[in-house]
């Protein structure tokens, strides 16, 4: 599904990612953890093609395609989804209109005709139910005036609508109370399938109680310094990141 080889990336002149290697197979859930400033969010930005960051070295292969050749919108249409840490507001643009445009762009890319209005509304209803999102959220403008929790739920709703092959959840747990966390995690779990993979970026073990990863990676100073099964998350929770920092001080 996704192969990252020796990925280096910088912003301005500061190198943030310094040689990331990672392979994700269909159906797998990978958690990426690490202290502040280790490059977690940069990794999600680089994967989705945010041009604030410049890739200086390395390759990313997604579904057999070199991601460097694809625009951010084509990466999305290829099935990559980012649940933003800070979803932006787009005043005056209804969620319905926004999602319909997005879905039809995805379909156009695959050579399919636009979805009919009735099919679309049906799909909306289905997915709203699946992720337990309030009906009136989707009647409002994109994220406008949403609370932090509502914004995150709305990200998961969009994920459900677009049915991506690879979902990247960038600190989806930040700013969520325990109930919202459970709803968001449930949504993610319901969408789990043998074809779909997920990258969960988080600081805390808490989210991983609900979304159980197959692998846990620790990112530190732009490199993956440790990879193991889900027990690694528990270990980090217990010991903090200091022992890692000590080990990899350079």
């Amino acid at each position: 599904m996704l192969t990252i080889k020796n990925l280096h990336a910088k912003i301005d002149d500061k190198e943030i990612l310094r040689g990331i290697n990672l392979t994700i197979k269909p159906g797998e859930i990978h958690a990426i953890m690490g202290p502040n400033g280790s490059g977690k969010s940069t990794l999600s930005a680089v994967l989705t093609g945010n041009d604030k960051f410049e890739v200086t070295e390395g390759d990313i292969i997604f579904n057999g395609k070199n991601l460097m050749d694809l625009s951010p919108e084509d990466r999305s249409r290829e099935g990559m989804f980012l649940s933003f840490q800070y979803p932006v507001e787009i005043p005056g643009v209804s969620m319905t209109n926004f999602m319909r445009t997005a879905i039809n762009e995805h379909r156009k890319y695959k050579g399919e005709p636009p979805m009919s209005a009735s099919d679309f509304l049906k799909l909306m209803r289905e997915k709203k139910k699946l992720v337990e999102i309030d009906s009136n959220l989707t009647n409002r403008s994109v994220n406008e005036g949403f609370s932090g929790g509502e914004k995150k739920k709305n990200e998961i709703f969009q994920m459900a609508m677009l049915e991506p092959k690879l979902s990247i959840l960038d600190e989806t747990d930040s700013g969520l109370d325990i109930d919202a966390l459970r709803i968001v995690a449930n949504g993610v779990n319901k969408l789990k399938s043998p074809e779909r993979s997920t990258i969960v970026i988080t600081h805390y073990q808490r989210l991983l109680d609900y979304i159980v990863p197959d692998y846990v990676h620790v990112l530190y100073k732009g490199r993956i310094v440790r990879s193991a099964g889900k027990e690694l998350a528990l270990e980090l929770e217990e010991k903090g990141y200091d022992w890692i920092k000590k080990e990899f001080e350079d």
Partner: protein
Amino acid sequence: MAEDQNKILEEVTGSDYKFGFTTSIDTETIPKGLSEDVVRLISAKKNEPEFMLNYRLEAYKHWLTLKQPDWAHLNIPEINFQEIIFYAAPRTKPKYDSIDDVDPELIDTFNKLGIPLNEQKALAGVAVDAVMDSVSVKTTFKETLAEKGIIFCSISDAIKEFPDLIQKYLGSVVTYNDNYFAALNSAVFSDGSFVYIPKGVRCPLELSTYFRINAMNTGQFERTLIIADDDSYVSYLEGCTAPMRDENQLHAAIVEIVVMERAEVKYSTVQNWYPGDKNGVGGIFNFVTKRAFCKGDYSKISWTQVETGSSITWKYPSCILKGDHSVGEFYSVAVTNNYQQADTGTKMIHLGKHTKSLIVSKGVSAGKSQNSYRGLVKVSKKANDARNFSQCDSLLLGDKCGAHTFPYLEINNNTAIVEHEATTSKIGEDQIFYCNQRGLSTEDAIGLIVNGYVKEVINQLPMEFAVEAQKLLQLSLEGSVG
């Protein structure tokens, strides 16, 4: 990153104007230049009654004493009036009794513009008056409307057929000495639409005039007069386009509206004159005086304008709220791109008691354009309990354009409540990236964001035109930000 942004910006601003074609049709023109003889010639061409000629001559004499105004935030090159042709008409039969008599080239032209002149093919619920250069080509659904006593025809016909109404109302809202371009228009206006809605009649169709400039080196000077008698209602829409040419062409129009007791007029404009190319060459100078006179108590006028075209726009659709409890509304979207300049807004003149006005203005500037809102809210001494709310927002795409707001308030009555809110914002890269990440291209993202931003105004347009206007906005901004 900055370089990338500039690149995308340039790509986006390089969009093409869809309506830039010309129609090769035999056109009758008079020699270029402006003189008393030209004014007489235009009047003679139109077989006008003497009162009309006299009105034109008075206006012309007054115009000679005036200077081109320079107070707007616009850079207007000097206009050489001796290089302009003041009258041009497709040379075909002077009068069309049926659609079959209309030159197929003309029908084809209007078809290309999405304005079918054939009533069977026409947009449901819309009657159209089509004006090419200086003359009205065809008015549809005239008979259907006549059954209700509604008059909808070209102003030329109205001058001949309804001289009493014309003598009473033409120039009653915008006098010929109102301003420089009004004087010019009053002297040389060629055609336009006339609407009269009788007492108590709700016009069953949207009335629409479509203006097309085709001939070279000509100016278009149209004149529209709408009279809504007591307890009547009409929704009127105008649209306009012009071919792509390297020279600037002048368009100086007057629209006058008289609204009687409890009557309501909704006037919508989708202005898409040729804006010039991306280097600022060519384009229409759009100098327009539009004013509505809410004469009767409880009357209402609502202006909605979507301004995307023209190289220079100078336009302030105004409301004179004379009747007690009368209401004036102004909803505006002005989009400028490349080297376009717009100085537009409104005047709300509160004369009657309990009068209300609302201003919602949304400016969108891209490229190297300049976009100004200029608005006056005036409350006279006797206008007790007047109320105004103004909202003026500007959206900037890129960093080479300018947005300006010039609000003027003259409040002479201390019972008035007047509020003004203004905001300026930029489309954020993060908004665009968010859309990109959901599969939208940058251009589509900008279109979506801008349409969201102007939604409040677009919602005021009649349904059929709201969709058109949305597409138009997207088109005008194609390629405008990174």
